[in-house]
């Protein structure tokens, strides 16, 4: 029995993992090190970044982005502001839409469940480029959305050319201020390169259109997670609540939502992580415009390096973004630490658990993929 020989397993083990180690090492670990070096250097993009002509400049790139007043810092702050409003809009709305879709689909009397589930989930598996093209058309000046708004007498905006912030528009509409001449107390003091007026703009009309697209696209994946959670809910519990005379809404709030709490937590934290990475839509649809209102850190990093040739700064932005996402991921892992234990306990009650453990990983994985694209 040669193969039982530990020596042989040693060799085979390393042989089996070697392709993975080489590819991940060369195309993931090494480049991260290289980019870290570039973010600390004055490399201009020509020649090898690891040569004698390239100088170590310490944290100069990071200082320009985070400390020194200037265009670099202002752009990064604009991208943070945009992402803040983006997250604030997308995460709650996609969670609610996903939950609503799941609850609708979970109705006992529903016919054709598979059809509806397919329809709601389909956009999640389609290329973000294809979806972006579609939405460019739907949200065009004379596009479908504005046509529908027209039925209700609303004159739709020129979505992707409109840089007005929603809060600005709202304030203008209720007479708080005029967009054309913002009040001076909001424009004069500036914090990190942006005035209050700019900080409190809200998402621009263009960014809102992208937000709607992303909510529409990703809700389907999260719906699947909610459906899985809902089908775990023992019917007996709901029955008991029914016997106690709870109405539909009370049952939803007092039985369903608490039961789904781990799933809601998962969906919200995954939403946070995903929304910080948004890039494709900006690349395809707006290139950061109009007036930088759809600029995100990921797109800014790309633009700094590939468009403006400022590699050090582009790499530095990537590492700042990395740090933010790392904090979010760590927080998620920390928040979810008890979840696996309790999910296990719940699963023990059922007979179907053998299948669940591996498949649950797969759902989460599918989901992660969809989010990051």
């Amino acid at each position: 029995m040669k193969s039982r020989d530990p020596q042989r397993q040693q060799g085979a083990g390393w042989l089996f993992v070697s392709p993975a180690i080489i590819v991940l090492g060369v195309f993931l670990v090494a480049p991260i090190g290289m980019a870290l070096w570039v973010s600390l250097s004055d490399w201009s993009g020509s020649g090898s970044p690891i040569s004698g002509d390239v100088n170590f400049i310490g944290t100069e790139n990071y200082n320009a982005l985070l400390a020194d007043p200037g265009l670099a810092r202002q752009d990064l702050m604009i991208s943070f502001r945009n992402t803040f409003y983006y997250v604030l809009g997308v995460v709650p709305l996609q969670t609610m839409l996903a939950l609503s879709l799941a609850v609708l689909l979970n109705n006992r009397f529903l016919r054709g469940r598979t059809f509806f589930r397919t329809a709601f989930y389909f956009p999640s598996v389609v290329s973000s480029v294809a979806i972006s093209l579609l939405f460019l058309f739907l949200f065009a000046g004379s596009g479908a959305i504005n046509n529908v708004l027209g039925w209700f007498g609303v004159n739709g905006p020129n979505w992707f050319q409109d840089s007005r912030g929603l809060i600005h528009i709202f304030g203008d509409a209720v007479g708080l201020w005029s967009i054309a001449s913002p009040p001076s107390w909001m424009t004069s003091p500036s914090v990190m390169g942006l005035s209050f007026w700019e900080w409190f703009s809200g998402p621009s009309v263009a960014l809102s259109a992208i937000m709607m697209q992303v909510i529409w696209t990703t809700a389907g994946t999260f719906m699947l997670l909610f459906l899985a959670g809902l089908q775990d809910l023992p019917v007996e519990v709901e029955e008991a609540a029914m016997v106690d005379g709870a109405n539909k809404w009370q049952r939803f709030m007092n039985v369903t939502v608490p039961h789904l709490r781990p799933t809601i937590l998962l969906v919200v934290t995954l939403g946070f992580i995903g929304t910080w990475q948004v890039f494709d839509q900006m690349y395809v649809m707006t290139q950061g415009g109009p007036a930088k209102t759809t600029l995100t850190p990921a797109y800014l990093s790309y633009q700094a390096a590939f468009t403006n040739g400022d590699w050090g700064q582009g790499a530095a932005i990537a590492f700042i973004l990395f740090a933010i996402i790392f904090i979010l991921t760590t927080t998620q892992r920390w928040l979810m630490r008890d979840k696996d234990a309790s999910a296990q306990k719940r699963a023990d009650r059922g007979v179907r658990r053998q299948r669940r453990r591996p498949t649950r990983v797969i759902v989460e994985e599918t989901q992660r993929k969809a989010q990051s694209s």
Partner: protein
Amino acid sequence: MSAPPKDDGVPVTPELAAVGESRPSRVKKYWFYGMLLFFALLYIYPFIIQLVTSFKTDPDATGNALSLTPDPFTTGAWETLFSSNYPTWFTNSVIVTLCVTVGRVFFCSLAGYALARLKFTGRIALFTGLLAVMAVPGIVLLIPKFLILNYVGIYNTYPALIVPLMIDAAGIFIMKQFFETIPESVEEAARIDGAGTFRTFWSVVLPMAKPALITLTILSFQGSWNELGHFIVATNNPDLYTLTRGVAGFTTGGLGSGNQYPVAMAAALLMTIPTALVFIVFQRYFTQGANAGAEKG
């Protein structure tokens, strides 16, 4: 235990109706289906518009965005599309996706199996490293990847498009998790028969991992077909563009002034079709996790 809802829509828990709630009234039912129809329209109508618009003329698409009858009907957009670089991009996408998928399924299974079953020094450290790698968001790797592809000297080649995507840490993780659920006694039997490590893996363990393999295949296919970021930084040669890269350029270059919405819709539609086919055929595997309960119940 009582069965969860099934697709045929038969109420599976009649005793429930007897306890408290009477069967939903007609009004409630209409309200429910009304909501459902609204969401279904919201999700399906855009794709119908996409299909119809691809057979419209430019002015018709701009002027009657919602209309479902092309007036006049034309295949002009499709002809424009096929005489552009689109066929090249499509071929490239097929080549890249096939290579990435085959490579990923094979190498991730190999590594996953080693991490799950083989005893070798450094295994635990490697697994920890794998978890760390999984936490790196792809989007921050754009600049690093470009740097290394240039440094290694394969920028603007097929290997640059394919090799970096061939290993996916999450894929290794999925396979490892699955292999751990296969009873060890199966391998023992093979070993007693004198099979070597690779043979045991290839002819005994791998066939048992079919569900995981199919899932990984689908994830790889979908992931590499839809990938955009990596292809942006791996090439700037239009002959090497994949669909996502090429079509993304459509919007930034061609559509700005004289909008060619029908061409754009045709381009988007055609690149969606392979995904749609795979999705419809293998839907069970996409949604399996969510339905694990329902199917077994």
